[in-house]
């Protein structure tokens, strides 16, 4: 053993003159990324529960929180964290759909009561609530689920511009499954969907490649999936949690994907409706739009006999006679309708129900249900609007469906900024393209571009197809020369609603414009036509503020044998009609059972 080896360890004594390295109280701050106690911006949080779903320790439960209301897009729940379980992984933060959840860098907390170590971050105030530091969702490009929507194949503008063929192609299986994978299964959409469809369930069925299960889920709440899968106003997508940081789920296209996979002849087998019980109760339904079709479907399943009386020669109502074929092909309407008919519902076409017929139905049926929609076009009533070449959009759209030849001059002006205006704009553009090889439509609305009620994609696509969308003008008069329309005079519209929120456009009379036209289409809304209700009944029916028939939660009017649903009550869109019809079917069944 060398002397060196004996002495060298004593070098350690050198440490005596060094500064100590131990930490003193108070404890030092956690690092800026430290994973300490939770914080939640409860106003941004939507209560989607993804944090609860990911937590491997079940340290999070979603609970009602004081001061938080349940509303569209917000479950009203907030996460409660239990530090007896939490392991500070922060996966809850990484998955949070809104980015509201984070962790502070606070890591010491001493208390006597272990129950205190459970709290609702953001609601139960904590000293670290205001702390900037702590773990946040990683950036950039760090995601726990797909942010981008799987794009849908569509025909290019040149290809679709002169054709009424459906231009949205539909998802392939791979695309649908990829899109379905993005769903976080929060169910926020279910509450917002007027029909409360089982959205996460049918999306899950797509992921599981179980189309039959998907169909069963769809039909629980919606008997028109081919239709809704194409043209639904998809309010669900507006509230989709995934939409807070990325693109919302393409819920509508996924619904279409399921329905598209199943041939008509398989429906009864999948939905287990080969044999359904039929009782002796009879229901007359007026109008073959979605409101009646949906009611008839669920009434059939409940064992009732339904007969629909329809004015026109095909079923579907505005879905067929309003919505253009390039968005909703007629064979898809037929597919949904035929299945409903196959369960025993009879549709009697070309039967306009008037007051006399109405009374006859009342006599011969146990219940009458009305779903006659909104079929009266509204006029601007500006000078010249009574000219024979001023048309209502819904009349033209109906005539196009009926195969009638409508007037298609080279220059057309459409007044209106909603989706119906876009439908007529794009339909006329197509007819012009076919007839003249070019498009000459100008569409103008009171609303400025940012607040036009039409869907953004409708405006973009209409422009792609060659139409001019020139919003923000108030129509003044139609110029007529030698009995022929020359065009539309407009002035700048500054605002539409006054301070009290009433419709009262304010116009700048000095800022003028003139749109040349040979024909003008008005598309500024529709009204209800209930002239079929006999006067003596009208007196007995309760009406609401805007001339609407009053109904209860089950769409029963003040006359117990009379039910009403669809556009005339709520909406206007297809899914409200479906939801109303479903609810009404339950109401009617209850009413009949009590009788």
């Amino acid at each position, binding site marked *: 053993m060398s002397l060196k*080896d004996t002495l060298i360890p004593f070098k*350690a004594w050198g440490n005596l003159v060094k500064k100590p390295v131990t930490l003193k109280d108070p404890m030092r701050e956690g690092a800026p990324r430290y994973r300490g106690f939770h914080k939640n911006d409860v106003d941004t949080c939507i209560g989607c529960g993804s944090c609860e779903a990911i937590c491997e320790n079940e340290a999070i439960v979603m609970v009602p929180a004081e001061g938080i209301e349940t509303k569209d897009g917000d479950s009203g729940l907030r996460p409660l964290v239990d530090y007896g379980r939490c392991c500070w*992984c*922060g996966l809850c933060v990484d998955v949070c759909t809104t980015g509201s959840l984070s962790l502070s860098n606070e890591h010491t907390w001493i208390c006597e009561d272990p129950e205190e170590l459970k709290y609702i971050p953001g609601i139960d105030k904590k000293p670290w609530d205001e702390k900037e530091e702590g773990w946040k969702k990683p950036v950039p490009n760090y995601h726990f689920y797909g942010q981008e929507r799987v794009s849908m194949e569509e025909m290019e503008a040149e290809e679709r511009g002169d054709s009424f063929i459906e231009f949205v192609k539909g998802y392939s299986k791979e695309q649908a499954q990829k899109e379905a994978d993005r769903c976080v299964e929060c169910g926020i959409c279910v509450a917002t969907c007027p029909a409360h469809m089982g959205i996460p369930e049918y999306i899950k069925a797509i992921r599981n490649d179980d189309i039959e299960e998907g169909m069963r889920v769809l039909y629980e709440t919606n008997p028109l999936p081919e239709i809704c899968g194409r043209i639904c106003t998809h309010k669900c997508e507006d509230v989709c949690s995934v939409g807070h940081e990325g693109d919302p789920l393409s819920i509508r296209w996924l619904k279409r994907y399921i329905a598209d996979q199943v041939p008509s002849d398989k429906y009864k087998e999948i939905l287990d409706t080969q044999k359904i019980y039929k009782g002796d109760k009879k229901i007359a339904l007026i109008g073959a739009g979605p409101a009646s079709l949906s009611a008839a479907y669920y009434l059939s399943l409940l064992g009732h006999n339904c007969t629909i009386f329809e004015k026109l020669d095909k079923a579907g109502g505005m879905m067929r006679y309003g919505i253009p074929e390039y968005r909703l092909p007629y064979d898809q309407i037929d597919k949904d309708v035929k299945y409903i008919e196959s369960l025993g519902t009879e549709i009697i076409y070309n039967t306009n129900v008037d007051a006399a017929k109405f009374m006859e139905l009342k006599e011969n049926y146990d219940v009458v249900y009305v779903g006659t929609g909104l079929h009266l076009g509204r006029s601007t009533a500006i000078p010249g609007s009574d000219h024979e070449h001023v048309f209502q959009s819904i009349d033209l759209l109906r005539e196009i469906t009926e195969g009638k030849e409508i007037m298609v001059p080279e220059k057309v002006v459409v007044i209106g900024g909603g989706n119906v205006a876009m439908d007529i704009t794009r339909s006329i553009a197509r007819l012009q393209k076919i007839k003249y090889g070019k498009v000459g439509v100008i569409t103008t609305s009171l609303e400025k571009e940012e607040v036009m009620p039409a869907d953004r994609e409708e405006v973009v696509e209409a422009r792609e197809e060659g139409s001019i969308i020139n919003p923000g003008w108030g129509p003044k008069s139609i110029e007529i020369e030698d009995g022929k329309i020359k065009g539309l005079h407009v002035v700048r519209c500054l605002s539409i609603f006054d301070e009290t929120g009433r419709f009262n456009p304010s116009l700048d009379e000095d800022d003028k414009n003139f749109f040349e036209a040979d024909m003008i289409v008005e598309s500024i809304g529709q009204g209800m036509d209930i002239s079929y209700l006999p006067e003596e009944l009208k007196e007995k029916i309760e009406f609401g503020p805007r001339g609407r028939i009053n109904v209860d939660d089950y769409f029963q009017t003040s006359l117990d044998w009379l039910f009403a649903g669809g556009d005339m009550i709520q909406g206007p869109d297809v899914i409200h009609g479906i939801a109303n019809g479903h609810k009404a079917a339950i109401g009617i069944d209850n009413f009949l059972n009590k009788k």
Partner: protein
Amino acid sequence: MSLLNIETDRSKYPVKGEDGKLQIDLDSHKYVKLWQGPNHPGVTGNMALELTLAGDEIVESKTHVGYLHRGFEKLIERRLFVQGLPTSIRMCVAEPDSNEYVYSTCVEQLSGIDIPEMAKWIRALLLEMARLQALLRVVPGQGGTFALGLGVQWGVYMRELILDRFEELTGGRVYHMFMTPGGVRGLLPGGFKKRMEENLKEIDQFVINIDNLMYSNSVFKKRAIDVAVLDPSWIDKYGAVGPVARSAGYNRDVRKDYPYLIYDQLDFEPKVMNHSDIYNRSRIRWYDIQTSVDLIRQIMAKMPEKGDIKAETPNVLHWRIPKGETYVRSEASRGEYGLYMVTDGSDKPRRINLRGPSYTQAVALLQDLLVGANIADVAAIMVSLQTCPPEIER
């Protein structure tokens, strides 16, 4: 003849019986049974050694485990793939990052996911940091087994410096959970490299100090040299890996033999020695500290400045993996650390099984290596094999 009638010439017993087994008759008063553990300051964690002593010499030894079983493998089989990560790390407290790496890589391999370049560099950095902090504990810890506690105090401080960097980078000190399946959870924070370099400089000095305190120390040498010599022929028989194998002349290192992440872009030669006694098994880890320090420097110099940190993965809330199986290995400070994963098309693993160095080295190898050793050397031998009971039990 001594007072207690104990035979002082121990070479006489125990003898082998006709069946070839040692004849140990406790009633003969020649032997004493002694349990070291499951709770014992000389045992790193909870496990027990059932020792049979003749005087203070061990004539037979058996390793007993089962005191620390938490069922992590089974727990993970009941969790979504993303949820398995925070559970997996707990299988080895001393070096949890290896668990993160093998777990996430299994998930990625079975899903056919390639992680971005940047994530690979950060993972390698984390793994070297993890190795370093583990070694900063175990290297001076060897001194601790001979009651030389000072180095342990230094090591704890040095380790804390690395934990500071872990905290800064990952948000956690001991458990980091930073390598989520698909990548990592962040880039290096600003100024990280500078602060790391300052720490590494302190560790450079620590390496010298430890050499003076331990490896040049006559007492340490006396206790460690030529004690519990491991015959090289035992390495493969017992499945010994890492520093234990390298101290016995086996040039084995997963980073070299099956390069993963970005290890093929780094310049390093793991130390190999030719006489595996306590001294060299400990000393080789002292060299490993230096290799790790050097690798951290290389990684920080060579890694890209920017880049994606995570590949696109399926939605973690319903990530399903088709039927398959894989084994992912890595080199932990103790040697080959691997995870076998079987998937069945569902959103949870069908089976996972961890292969850790302690399982082979601290169960079979340890009990045989202890025979002939002195009772006072048990703790030292155990640490020289870098025993980690949590990793044995899972």
